[in-house]
């Protein structure tokens, strides 16, 4: 064996990693405790998951505070970045775990399948996501991506009794495998072009103009493939085809987790890679992002309108939301402008707000869909306003927020990215986005019409609202309205994410 003493590993700042560790401990407890102990009391698996996510969030606040005193830095031998950006991304993902685990718990109890497996998968997906958010090296990023994706494939297929769920899992797995391959190939090509996988090193190499040719085919192909891989994960058009089927087929709480945590992780990775490593190549990737954004906005909104299944509608609407977030990425690409940083801040704010919104919406959809997760057609929402006024009201708040109505968090999110786009003089895309949101509004109106203005024939049963789901919905509504009415504190906080480590 090699002499162990010659291999000095990098120093590991354990406290900085504590949010990850909290999730990991939670996952281990669930896995071991779940298999060694007899069936836990109802709902306890979910509560343990929620607690470890909550712990993680609290730890994030401490880290945030530490960061505000210190400087962003890279840790563990430049493998991970420790900056406000990563912490905010971590918070978003943990919020997703927290809310989704509450609703999943009720879902599993309803389906009679209460067990630790889904929660362990949530936690490991979240760990993968957090690694993606913080990854400062393309290989680490890939590790995070695979951890997240593998967990999500299984989660999508987790309902053994529904064929759609199996189909969703398989579809997601095959297409996701393709996208991972693209992504990995992209890493390989970028490594071939720059001799580095570390984002900071790549940035340095690329910005030394004389040393590095302007139009290196290897590099451009690598960047292209990398973008394909990430665009697949964020469900941007034209890499969106899996989204409707997977969102519809997966168990509803899983869909909500996929739409929130998955998107946050992939977008954060996209932002970090593109504005650090590829900073000097903005002119090359900006047009790609522009096209992705416009296509996602338009295709997402237009196709959403023609759907009759609410989960499918929301899948398309999530594509359109991805377009909005890409608006922020596009703004961030104008590195010459002083406002480019607003693009990063607005995209990350959007992700956090959308996380809460989308989980809230899908939770209600899941509650209405009822046992077997089957009744998610538009017609199943008829008369919800009469059967469950409070639930319908919460749904209305979420839908109005997704449509970007003022006094909700959705407006704050939209306003942020539109402002970033306008500041960087991207007027065309800003107007396209707003028009797409008008088309999108029609979709949310259709659901509201169903819930409030159409009466159900023979559907008098009010969907039961279990405690934990009710709690999650209430918290999400409160957050949506509070941020909508007093967004100042959040904006002040998210302004700080613009300084990325190693840049």
């Amino acid at each position, binding site marked *: 064996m090699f002499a162990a003493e010659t291999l000095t590993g990098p120093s590991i700042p354990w406290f900085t990693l504590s949010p990850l560790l909290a999730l990991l401990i939670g996952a281990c407890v669930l896995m071991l405790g779940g298999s060694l102990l007899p069936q836990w009391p109802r709902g306890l698996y979910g509560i343990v998951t929620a607690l470890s996510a909550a712990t993680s969030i609290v730890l994030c606040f401490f880290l945030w505070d530490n960061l505000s005193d210190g400087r962003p830095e890279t840790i563990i031998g430049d493998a991970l970045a420790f900056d406000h950006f990563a912490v905010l991304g971590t918070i978003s993902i943990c919020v997703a775990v927290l809310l989704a685990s509450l609703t999943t718990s009720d879902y599993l109890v309803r389906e009679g399948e209460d067990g630790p497996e889904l929660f362990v998968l949530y936690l490991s997906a979240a760990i993968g996501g957090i690694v993606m958010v913080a990854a400062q090296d393309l290989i680490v990023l890939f590790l995070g991506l695979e951890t997240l994706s593998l967990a999500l494939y299984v989660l999508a297929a987790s309902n053994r009794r529904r064929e759609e769920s199996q189909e969703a899992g398989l579809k997601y797995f095959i297409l996701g495998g393709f996208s991972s391959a693209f992504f990995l190939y992209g890493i390989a090509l970028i490594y071939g072009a720059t001799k580095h996988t570390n984002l900071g090193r790549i940035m340095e190499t690329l910005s030394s103009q004389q040393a590095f040719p302007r139009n290196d085919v290897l590099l451009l192909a690598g960047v292209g493939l990398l973008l394909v891989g990430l665009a697949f994960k964020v469900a941007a058009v034209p890499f969106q085809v899996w989204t409707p089927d997977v969102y519809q087929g997966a168990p509803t709480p899983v869909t909500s987790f996929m739409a929130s945590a998955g998107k946050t992780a992939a977008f954060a990775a996209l932002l970090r890679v593109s504005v650090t490593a590829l900073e000097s190549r903005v002119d090359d990737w900006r047009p790609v992002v522009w096209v992705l954004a416009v296509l996602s906005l338009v295709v997402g909104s237009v196709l959403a309108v023609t759907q009759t299944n609410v989960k499918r509608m929301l899948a398309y609407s999530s594509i359109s939301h991805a377009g909005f977030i890409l608006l922020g990425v596009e703004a961030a690409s104008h590195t010459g402008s002083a406002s480019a940083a607003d693009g990063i801040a607005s995209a990350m704010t959007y992700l956090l707000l959308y996380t809460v919104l989308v989980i809230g919406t899908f939770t209600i959809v899941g509650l209405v869909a009822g046992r077997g997760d089957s009744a998610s057609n538009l017609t199943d929402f008829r008369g919800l306003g009469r059967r469950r006024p409070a639930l319908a009201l919460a749904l209305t708040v979420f839908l*109005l927020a997704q449509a970007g*109505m*003022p*006094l909700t968090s959705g*407006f704050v999110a939209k*306003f942020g990215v*539109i*402002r970033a786009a*306008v*500041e960087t003089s991207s*007027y065309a895309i*800003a*107007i396209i986005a*707003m*028009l797409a*949101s*008008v088309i999108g*509004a*029609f979709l949310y*109106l259709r659901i509201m*019409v169903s819930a*409030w*203005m*159409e009466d159900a024939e023979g559907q008098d049963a009010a969907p039961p609202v279990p405690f934990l789901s009710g709690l999650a919905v209430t918290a999400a509504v409160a957050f949506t309205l509070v941020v909508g*009415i*007093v*967004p*100042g504190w959040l*904006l*002040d906080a998210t*302004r700080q994410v613009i300084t990325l480590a190693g840049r």
Partner: protein
Amino acid sequence: MFAAQAAGGSALSFPILTTLVLVPALGGILTILTSNRRPESTKFVALVASTVTAGLSIWLLSSFETADAGFQFVSQHPWIRDWGIGWHVGVDGISLFLVVLTGLLFPLVIAGIDPHHDHKRYLGWMLVLEAGVMGSFISLDLFLFFLFFEIVLVPMYFLIGGWGYDQRVYAATKFFLYTMFGSAFMLVGIVATAVLAKNSLGYVTFDLVQLAEGAEFAASSGRWLFMAFAIAFAVKVPLFPLHTWLPDAHTQAPTGGSVILAGVLLKLGTYGFLRFGLYLFPEASVWVRPLFLTLAVIGILWGAIAATMQKDLKRLVAYSSVAHLGFIVLGTFAFTSQALTGSVMQMVNHGISTGALFLLVGMIYERRQTREISQLTGLQAVAPIFAAAFMVVMLSSIGVPGLNGFVGEFLILIGSFGNARWWVVIGATGVILAALYLLWAYQRVFHGEPDEDNKSFAELRPREGILLLSFIAPIILMGVFPKPMLERIEPSVKALVAHVETNVGRGFEFEKKDIAPVVHSGTNPSETENKDDEGHGG
């Protein structure tokens, strides 16, 4: 939320404008929270909230400084500092009467019109709507205005969709999407205004007064920005060819919704042109003048001709709105103080008379379950008082001297004649057409012998009479004695005209004497306005 701290006002230290928004908003929430088992408590809460708002608006009217052209009762607090957004509210002569109209119209609608089902939600949405409309009229911050302008959609959408007639969902959705389409441009315009103004101001702000007085835009960007705002307002007014949502929304809305829609909601568009078009982008609004004058005239004629051909009485009134609002836009883009004063007055007039017309049509529908003109005949014989009330309101809508409609229309026409002569000449035929379609409708519905179905048409009930009287009284009062109103509107309008003229560098007034002293003394009227603001700003 918005800390209602002490704010300066011309006569009041009490933040009355903030209260005007908060009372209905809180009333709306309280209404929803009342018990289902006690419907009378719901109505009570709603009535109290709207009546208190009405009282406050009367108080506002009485404490308003008549000769002051600037913003009064200003209250200003930072809200989202990071974005330069503040809670900045105030009224001047242009918005004063719209605020009062809003304050008075809502309690009447809440007290007088029965929605038939789901009272609690109906009243809750009504009050939220009132808060939104109030907020739009008093906002002096672009972001704040957009927020209220947009939030108004939600309650109106639910009111039309929940309590309207057969095609209600279609009409409500159309209304929502059309207006949101306009707002899409306006939001980008608002953000771009603030961002571009940073070049001349040095900081980002959404404050209307600071932007209008301090910011300078390149001519081309000013024009783009104006157009972005104008699309939103043109949809809301509605101007031809963006008017097609209006007949549907009006026809399908419940009576209360129609009254509010015609009474105050449409005014958001015409008011927006004055406050955020002319004031903010004087150069651009002069540049687009021919376009908007033309669209206004087309609207007048189109609305009038379409109204003539309607078979449905409510649709007829809806199209007459298109025509009337065309007049208001015509006056707005004439840029003379007379025409602008007429426009502001006509906004209020139209709110009262068309609101009352919708009310009357609603009463007819209640009695006959139809609004088809061909189904109605000879109502005058069975319900003479009802017919008389209809006649007065209709004459006001036509613009017969002695009633309010005449004053506004006359001021618009005479004020625009000097510099928009041919548009006025064509537009004035709209006055004649108005007489045609309304009188013809009256003739078909009220004259003749009542047939079997119409024989049992019930006469005006006392409660309905009181309700109508509260519309007819101001119709007559404002027609006979418009001076108190005009003298409050005029100073602000003159300041606005002067603001446009100094920014554009040419005069529009037909009678030069109005602006001559201003020009010769060399004072900048916008400075006067600024000074006033500081005087009242908190």
